[in-house]
Every structure is written in structure tokens, then in C-alpha cells.
């Protein structure tokens, strides 16, 4: 509880949201309990008063009915006989207020009117504990012969009863408040504890322990939801960081090797005897190696760019078939030179939302790969669309990729040949995947039996209404 905390903690506690909420609710709670008790008291006390008035009224009415003077005195005598415990007081006087009958010794002197016909006055009563002053509520009635009749009731019992109610109410109020404070404190503490758990976990993570996760209570409540969201976010961050680290390692490896080779070549050239022709040759080789390095660098940048791309870049509606056809045209001579057939198979326009440059580059990378690794036969670039998705596929009849390696080749710098004899930087498919992700799509590799089938699937954009999918003729194999 708050009171058990040392100074600084109390200060912190007083500034928590939980405390503020608890305090507000406590005040509301106290006010409502108080209002309830007051209402209870007022209505009970009022009832008591009305009850007394009704009794007095009934008595007077009863006595009034005694038309016979002697009978009246008789009744008063009976009713005011000592030993009756109803606390009723009677006094009959003549017009000069001299007592004639009753248990009151004299007409009250200091009565004050409570409301018309009703008076309150004090009397001295002898009790076992000595004389006491009691209040009496009375009503006065003037008889036909101008005699005065006073009927009243001793309020001592009523006052005692009222006091007892008041005490009871005060105690119950106190108990309710204590319970309220205790309950509020426990709940606040509870809430603070759960926030504390999250705060502790994040602190540990900030200090570098990335394996920490927010423990969940398993109740599925809001705190659990918050915790599990945090955990998912942490997982994602960890994955990204691992990816980054991997890329850094790969860059270190894949760029350091050619850089050291380049440096070594220059060094060796410098050690040799000065010879213009050899220098020129070495420089040319150096430039070509630098170019390769730059190529790798640019590819990495393109991937980073695609990965960091925003929705804004992919807002334009494009015809995937047009884009694919242009890439096919670009690569068709390459295929022919290699003795391969590049077939373009796209019967219809298929609209997607995207970035023309990135999509072109992704398709170019797929075609590039297919043409590079297919020794002979056919490479088919196809575009298809259904209601929700658009698919570009590049199918070749090359050696393919074993099923268990098909995911790995999407990672940066992963190349299947250990020797790396075929030119390339191992970044082509990474870019394809990054572009696919940027467009909310996927990039996958499938078995083409024989060969490989690379598929780029993108969400399809709605067709503009006026040009309802014109049927474009498929280009001839030779383009």
C-alpha cells in the first residue's frame, strides 16, 4: 500500500495514473456513501417524528370525544397514572391555566411553537440516575368551557433512538470508507504491478538483453494484449536486427574479398618493374573489378530502397503485361544469342498497383536468372490474372533448384554454386522478394519439371471501367 512505501516511492505513487484514478473514485465513493446515509437518517428521523405526532393527535381526538367533564378527568387520570410506560403527558387546566388533572405539575412556561398547534418544552424528570431534562412535544386544545387540554409526549426515547441511528450510520459510513480505500489501494497496486512488469522488461531490453519478453498472465485482458503486442513487435525487431546483422556480415564478406583482391593487384603491379603496357592492363582490370563492386553496391541499395519504400511508390495503376512485354523485348536478343527460345505468354492486360521501375527490375532479374542458368531449350515469361491476384511467372528448363534450397536463395548474397563461376552477385532474387513485399505480394520458386518456375504474385488492381480487359494477342515466340 501507499503508506508502506518510502518517500521517493510515495512521490512516484502519487503521480501515477492508477493513483489518480483511485483517488477520483474514492472521492466519488465517499460522496455517494455520505449521501446515502444522510438520506437514510432524514427519512428515519422524519418517520419517527410523524409517528409521535400521530400518537398525540389520536390521544387528543380520543379525549375530545369525552363530552362529559368528569368522564374526561377520569380518563386523564387513568391515562396519566404512574406506571404506564408510553411516555404520554397530559394536563387539563381551567381557563386561567391552573392544573385540574394530568401528570404534568404545571402549564409549561417556556414552550415554543414548532409549527401551528405544536409546541416543544422542557420538563424535569426524576429518574434513578437523578433529575434529567427531557423535551416534550405537545399539542394544546381548548375545550368548550375554555378549559385547556395539553397532550404531549416525552421525546427522550425518540432522541435516544435517533442517536443510536446516527451512531450506527456513522460507523457503517466509516467501515464503507475504510473498505473502499483498502479495495482501491489493492486494485491500484495490482494495476501498477502489471505496468511495472512491462516497464521492467523494456528496461532490460534497453540495457541490451533482447531475448526478454513481457510475461503474460494468460487472462487475455488488456494488459495481456498490450504485452503480447509488445512481444510481437519485439520479435519483429529482433528478426530485422538479425537480418541486418546477417547483411552486414555478408557485405563484409562479399565486398571485402574483392576489395582486398583489388588492393593486392594494385600493390603487386606497383612492385613490378614499371611498364606502361602492364600498368594499363592492371588499371583496366582494377576498373572492371571496381565496376563489379559498384554493381553489388547498387543492387544492395536497390533492395534497401524497395524495402524502405512506402505505399506512395506503389499507387499507380499499371498493366503488368505491358511491363513484362517490355522486359521480354529487352532480353529477347540475349536469349537468341544463347540459342534459347524466349516465349512471352500474356493473353490479357492485368492491372496492378505499383512502381514501374521496380516491377521491371524484378522481372528483369527473374529473366536474367532463367537465361543465365538454362543451357538450352525454352524460357517462358507469362502473365496471368484472376479476380484478386496477378501473377508473373518465369519458367525455364534449366537444372532447377532443390526444394530445400528454394527459400534460401532469396536471402542476400546466397548463390548455389560454391565456385561462383557464373557472373552475378547473389542479390537478384533478394530484390525480387523486396519488390514483391513492397507491393503486398509474394515471390516464390516452384518446380517446373524439369527446370525452375519463379512466380511473382501481386494483388490485382481493379480494371478501369471503360477499358474492360481488351484481349491482346499473344506475341509470336520471336517477338
Amino acid at each position, binding site marked *: 500500500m501507499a503508506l508502506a512505501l518510502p518517500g521517493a516511492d510515495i512521490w512516484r505513487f502519487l503521480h501515477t495514473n492508477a493513483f489518480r484514478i483511485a483517488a477520483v473514485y474514492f472521492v466519488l465513493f465517499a460522496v455517494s456513501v455520505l449521501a446515502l446515509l444522510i438520506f437514510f437518517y432524514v427519512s428515519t428521523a422524519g418517520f419517527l417524528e410523524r409517528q409521535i405526532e400521530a400518537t398525540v393527535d389520536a390521544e387528543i381526538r380520543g379525549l375530545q370525544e369525552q363530552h362529559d367533564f368528569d368522564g374526561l378527568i377520569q380518563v386523564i387520570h387513568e391515562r396519566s397514572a404512574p406506571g404506564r410506560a408510553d411516555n404520554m403527558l397530559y394536563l387539563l387546566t381551567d381557563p386561567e391555566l391552573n392544573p385540574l388533572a394530568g401528570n404534568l405539575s404545571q402549564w409549561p412556561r417556556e414552550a415554543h411553537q414548532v409549527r401551528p398547534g405544536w409546541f416543544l418544552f422542557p420538563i424535569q424528570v426524576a429518574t434513578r440516575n437523578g433529575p434529567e431534562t427531557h423535551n416534550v412535544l405537545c399539542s394544546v386544545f381548548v375545550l368548550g368551557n375554555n378549559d385547556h387540554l395539553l397532550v404531549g409526549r416525552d421525546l427522550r426515547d425518540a432522541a435516544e433512538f435517533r442517536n443510536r441511528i446516527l451512531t450506527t450510520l456513522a460507523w457503517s459510513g466509516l467501515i464503507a470508507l475504510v473498505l473502499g480505500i483498502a479495495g482501491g489501494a489493492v486494485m491500484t497496486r495490482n494495476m501498477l504491478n502489471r505496468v511495472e512488469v512491462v516497464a521492467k522488461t523494456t528496461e532490460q531490453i534497453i540495457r541490451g538483453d533482447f531475448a526478454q519478453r513481457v510475461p503474460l498472465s494468460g487472462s487475455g485482458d488488456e494488459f495481456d494484449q498490450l504485452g503480447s503486442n509488445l512481444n510481437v513487435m519485439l520479435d519483429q525487431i529482433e528478426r530485422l536486427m538479425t537480418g541486418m546483422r546477417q547483411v552486414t556480415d555478408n557485405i563484409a564478406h562479399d565486398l571485402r574479398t574483392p576489395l582486398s583482391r583489388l588492393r593486392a593487384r594494385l600493390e603487386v603491379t606497383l612492385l613490378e618493374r614499371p611498364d606502361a603496357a602492364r600498368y594499363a592492363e592492371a588499371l583496366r582490370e582494377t576498373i572492371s573489378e571496381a565496376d563489379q563492386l559498384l554493381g553489388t553496391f547498387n543492387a544492395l*541499395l536497390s533492395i534497401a530502397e524497395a524495402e524502405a519504400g512506402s505505399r506512395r511508390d506503389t499507387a499507380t495503376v499499371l498493366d503488368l503485361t505491358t511491363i513484362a512485354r517490355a522486359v521480354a523485348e529487352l532480353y529477347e536478343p540475349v536469349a537468341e544469342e544463347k540459342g534459347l527460345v524466349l516465349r512471352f505468354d500474356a493473353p490479357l492486360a492485368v492491372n496492378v498497383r505499383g512502381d514501374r521501375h521496380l516491377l521491371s527490375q524484378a522481372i528483369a532479374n527473374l529473366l536474367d536468372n532463367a537465361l543465365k542458368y538454362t543451357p538450352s531449350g525454352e524460357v517462358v515469361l507469362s502473365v496471368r490474372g484472376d479476380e484478386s491476384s496477378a501473377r508473373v511467372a518465369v519458367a525455364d528448363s534449366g537444372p532447377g533448384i532443390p526444394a530445400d534450397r528454394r527459400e534460401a536463395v532469396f536471402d542476400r548474397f546466397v548463390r548455389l554454386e560454391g565456385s561462383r563461376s557464373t557472373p552475378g*552477385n547473389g542479390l537478384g532474387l533478394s530484390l525480387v522478394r523486396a519488390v514483391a513485399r513492397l507491393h503486398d505480394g509474394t515471390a516464390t520458386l516452384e518446380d517446373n519439371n524439369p527446370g525452375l518456375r519463379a512466380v511473382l504474385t501481386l494483388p490485382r488492381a481493379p480494371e478501369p471501367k471503360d477499358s474492360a480487359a481488351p484481349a491482346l494477342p499473344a506475341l509470336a515466340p520471336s517477338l
Partner: protein
Amino acid sequence: MKLLLIEDDQKTADYIAKGLAESGYVVDTSHEGRDGLFMASGGNYDALIVDRMLPGMDGLAVIAALRAAEVKTPVLILSAMGAVDDRVKGLRAGGDDYLVKPFAFAELLARIEALLRRGPASSATVKLKAGPLEMDLLSRNVTRQGRDIDLLPREFRLLEFLMRHAGQVVTRTMLLENVWDYHFDPQTNVIDVHVSRLRQKLDKGFDKPLLQTVRGAGYRLNVE
């Protein structure tokens, strides 16, 4: 031909200036944006080479200020930022061409040459002529010494670009950008294959090759 180079990195500036001087240009250098703007608006330059990130005043702001002052000197922007968005921004600010760092010097030279020879009335031209080659842009007809050459649409556009820059070195990147409108480098050198195809069609039946490969740079359409 007088050029102004605005580039804050001393070494890069020296290397570019030296290379351009060796190629026969007179080069003034400024290392700061405001100073560069002052020189560009005062001096009579044939072309400007402006680095995008400059101290004092941003390269794009320099170009925008020049264009606002109706200085129409062609501008080549140098920048380390190569995203399509960045290019578009650069060209919108009033740049005429955009070259991403790092670049081959041959690339820079080829682009400067292209900028300097950019004819003002090129869009209104209906017929192009380069040495023995003639191209009718309306009938899409190409002849060499009167003999028809049959070209595919893409080959036609490739030749058109080469003819518009006849006698100059044209790099592979320039061809990719201008003929295909691609701003990425394909892994395989596809441009070489396209050019050699075009070359076969152009030179078929003739002794003298028209389309020459410039080592380490690109291609040149010989016209003399």
C-alpha cells in the same frame, strides 16, 4: 567550350576538372553553392555540372534560382541519391540530366557532350541524317546510301537516339535510360546484344562499319 563545376569535395572536383581539361574543355570550379550560383549567373558558361549536396546552398536550389533568373545554361546534376524520386526532383528543379555517383568518367564526358550538342529544334525534326544514314521519323523509314534497312520498333528508337547523338560517345546507361526508360543496370549486358544486332542490320552489305564500340565507355555512330 567553357564549363562550370560546382562540387564541394575537393578531390572529386580536381579529378573531374582535370579529366574535362584533358578532353579539351575550359573548367571553372566552385566549392560552394552560393558562390557557384554567383559564378553561374555571371560567367558565360556552355554547361554546368552541379553537385546536389552543397554547403551554403543546396544544388537543387542553385539550379532553381538560375532557372528563375532565366539562365538557360544546360545543367548536369551529380548526386549520390539515385532513386527515381530523386531523379524526378532533380529534373523538375530545372536540371537537364542526372548522373548518380559514383560514375565512370566516360559516362560524365558522354553526357556533357550530349548536353552541349542538344539541338534546340530536335523535336520538330521530321528527318534525321547522320553520314550515309537517313531516318524518316514519320514514315519510320531508314536508309543507308539509299538502301532500305528494316528495323524493329525498339531498334528504330535505338538508332534514332544514336543518330541524334551522331559522332558522340553514348554510354550503355544513357541508352537504357533514353531508349528503354530503365534506371537500373541489368546483370547481363543486354544493351551490347541489342547494339550488335542493330550493327549487323546497319552494316550488312557495306564495308565500312558505322557503329563503333568505344572501349570502357559505350558506342559511337561514326559519321565522317
